C-alpha cells in the first residue's frame, strides 16, 4: 500500500513497465511447453515431409533426392492400395454403425428411467480399458473354441451361421473373410458408449419447447425423433462423425494386436497406419514410410474439411 502515496511514477510509465514484466513472465512460462510443441509436433511434420522426398539411409540420413518418387511408388504399390481400401472400408462401416448404436443408446438413456446413471456408466465402461486388453479379450472370445462359438452352439444358432457359410469352429479373427468385420464389431462394441456420451451432450442441448410444440402438433414418438430430434442433433452428428472418421482412418492398435505388423491374415488387416509402420520398421524404407505418412495426413485433413463444408450450411451452434 506504500506505493499508493506521494511520489509514485505516472500511471503510463508504470503500466509500460508492468506490461514488459508481464510479457517476460508470459514467455518464461510458455518457453518449455512451446519448445516441445515446436520440436515434437510442428518440427516433426516438417521433418517427415523432408524425409519423404529422399532415399533415406537409416544411419547416415539423406542419400539420394527422389522428389516425388516415394509418393508415386506408394500409389502404384498394391499393398498400399489394399491398405487404403481396408482403411476406407473400416471407416465407412464402423463410423455409421457406431454412430447409430451411440445415438440409440443415448436416446434410450436420456429418458426418464430408473438406473440411468448405472446404464450410462456400464455402456461407457469398455471405453476406459486399453486397446491391448480389449483386443486380447476378443481374440480369446472369438477364437475357434472361444466363448462366442460355444454360446451360439448352445443356443442352437449354428444352422443360421452355416446358412451364412460359417462353420461351428469359425476362426473369426484368423480368417481373412471375417477378420476386418470382427475388428469393426469389436471397435463398435468398445466405442458405442463414447459416442453415446457425445450424443447425450447434444441431446440435452435441444430446447424443451421444441418437444412441447411437437406434442401439441400431435407428433408421435417416432415422428418426433425423425423430424425433430434427429435434425436438431446436426452439431452432434457433425462432431461424432468427425471424431469417428479421424479415429477410423488412423486404425492401428487393433490391427497390429490381432494381425501383427503384416496385417495378417492375408493383408486383410493391413491399414494405412500399419503399412506406414511396416514400411518404416520392417522394410526399413524411411523415405517411403514418411511419404505414406504425409498422404495419410492429407487424407485426414481433407476428410475433415469436406465434412466441415457439408455440415457448414446449417450449423447453428458454432461461431
Amino acid at each position, binding site marked *: 500500500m506504500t506505493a499508493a502515496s506521494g511520489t509514485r511514477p505516472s500511471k503510463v510509465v508504470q503500466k509500460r513497465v508492468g506490461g514488459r514484466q508481464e510479457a*517476460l*513472465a508470459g514467455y518464461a512460462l510458455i518457453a518449455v511447453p512451446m519448445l516441445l510443441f515446436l520440436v515434437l509436433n510442428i518440427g516433426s511434420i516438417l521433418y517427415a515431409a523432408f524425409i519423404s522426398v529422399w532415399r533415406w539411409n537409416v544411419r547416415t540420413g539423406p542419400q539420394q533426392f527422389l522428389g516425388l518418387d516415394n509418393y508415386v511408388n506408394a500409389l502404384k504399390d498394391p499393398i498400399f492400395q489394399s491398405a487404403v481400401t481396408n482403411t476406407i472400408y473400416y471407416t465407412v462401416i464402423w463410423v455409421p454403425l457406431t454412430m447409430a448404436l451411440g445415438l440409440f443408446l443415448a436416446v434410450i438413456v436420456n429418458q426418464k428411467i430408473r438406473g440411468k446413471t*448405472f446404464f450410462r456408466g456400464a455402456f461407457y465402461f469398455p471405453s476406459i480399458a486399453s486397446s491391448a*486388453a480389449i483386443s*486380447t479379450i476378443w481374440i480369446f472370445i472369438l477364437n475357434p473354441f472361444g466363448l462366442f462359438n460355444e454360446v451360439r452352439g448352445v443356443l442352437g444358432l449354428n444352422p443360421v451361421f452355416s446358412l451364412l457359410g460359417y462353420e461351428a469352429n469359425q476362426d473369426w479373427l484368423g480368417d481373412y473373410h471375417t477378420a476386418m468385420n470382427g475388428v469393426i464389431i469389436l471397435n463398435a462394441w468398445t466405442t458405442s458408449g463414447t459416442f453415446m*456420451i457425445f450424443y447425450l451432450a447434444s441431446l440435452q442441448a435441444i430446447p424443451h419447447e421444441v418437444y412441447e410444440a411437437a406434442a401439441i402438433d400431435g407428433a408421435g414418438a417416432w415422428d418426433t425423433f425423425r423430424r425433430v430430434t434427429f435434425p436438431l442433433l446436426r452439431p452432434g452428428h457433425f462432431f461424432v462423425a468427425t471424431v469417428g472418421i479421424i479415429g477410423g482412418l488412423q486404425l492401428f492398435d487393433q490391427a497390429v494386436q490381432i494381425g501383427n505388423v503384416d496385417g495378417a491374415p492375408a493383408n486383410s488387416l493391413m491399414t494405412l497406419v500399419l503399412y506406414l509402420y511396416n514400411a518404416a520398421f520392417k522394410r526399413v524404407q524411411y523415405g517411403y514410410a514418411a511419404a505414406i505418412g504425409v498422404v495419410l495426413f492429407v487424407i485426414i485433413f481433407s476428410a475433415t474439411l469436406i465434412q*466441415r463444408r457439408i455440415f457448414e450450411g446449417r450449423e447453428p451452434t458454432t461461431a
Partner: protein
Amino acid sequence: MTDENENRPQQPEGDQPRAFDPALASPIIDAAPGRVGTRALATVAALPAPVAQPIVAPVGDTGHVWRTRLAYFFLIGYALLMFVPFAWTVITSFKTLEDSVRLTLIPQPFTTAAWDYALFQLHPNVAQMFFNSFIVAIAVTLTNVVLGSVAGYAFARLRFPGRNFLFLLVLATLMIPDQLRMLPIYIITNALGLGKGPLQLASIVLVLAISATSVFLLRQYFLTIPKDLEEAARIDGASHWTTFLRVMLPLASPAIAAVTILQFQGTWNGFFWPFVLIRDQALWTLPLGLTQFRLVGGFGTNWPPLMATVVMATLPILVLYMFFQRYFVEGIAASGVKG
C-alpha cells in the same frame, strides 16, 4: 458408478454445485478463435448449453409402459453385452488351460496358478510391466500438469505479443496424427540417446510430456477464475509467479484433477508410442507386453495367464473410473476418441 458420480455432460435436473465442467465454462465459446479445425473446439460446439432441460416424457399411458419395458429390455441386454466379456476374462484367469475352453462359469478346479505364472514367472513378469507402466504414466501426468498449468495460465492471463498466434499453434497440433510424427520422433529420440536402456521409457515421457488438450483444459479453467482475486494479490505486491503459484493454482485444482485422470488413463492404456519406441523386453509396459506375448512371446493361446494380465492391465483404471467417473467423461469430451 454411484449416483454421486453422475456423468457430467448429461447435466442432471438437480442443481448441485459443479466442481469443474469445461463444457459449461462459457469463456470457451467466447475465446474460441474462429474456426480452427481442432477437436477441442469442435467439442465446444457439441457440448450442452448451460441449462439443459429433461426431455418431455412421452404421453399416452399404455404406449409409455410398453416403451419403458422395451427400453429396459435393451438396456439390460446391452449392459450384459458390455460386462460379459470382462466377467469371462476374470473367470478364465482362475481356470486351468484345459478348463479355459469350456463353457463353465465356475472354474474347476479353481486355481491361482495362472496368476502366479503371470505375476512372477513370465519374463518380464506382470509385476515388472506394471511398474514400467506406472512410472511412465506418473511421469507423463506430472509433466502435463506442470507444463499445462504454466502454459495455460500464461495463455489465459498474461498479455504478451504473439499470444494468440502461439495458442492457435498449440491447438493446431491436435490436427497432427501421431503416425506422421512416428518416424521423425523415432529418429530424434535416438539422436538424443534415448533409444537405449531405461531411457527408452524417458523417450515416451518426452513425446507425451505436454499435450494441447492439457493446455487447453487448464487455460479454459483459468479464464473462468475471477480477475479480482489475482488483482488483490498483485496489489499486495506479489509477482506473477507467486500469484500463479499461491492464488491461481490452488483454485484450478478441479481442472488439474481432470488433466491428471485424462493423462494417467491415456498413458497407462497407451499402445502406439511404447510399440514404436521400446525395444527392450524388460521395459515393456502392460499393453505392449499383452500384445507381444501373443505375437512373439509364444503363449498365444495360453489363455488363463493372458487373462490375468488383462485384469492387471485394467484394474487400476477401473478403480479410478469408479471414483472419478465424471473426469473420464470430461476427458473424452475434450480429447476425442482413440482409433
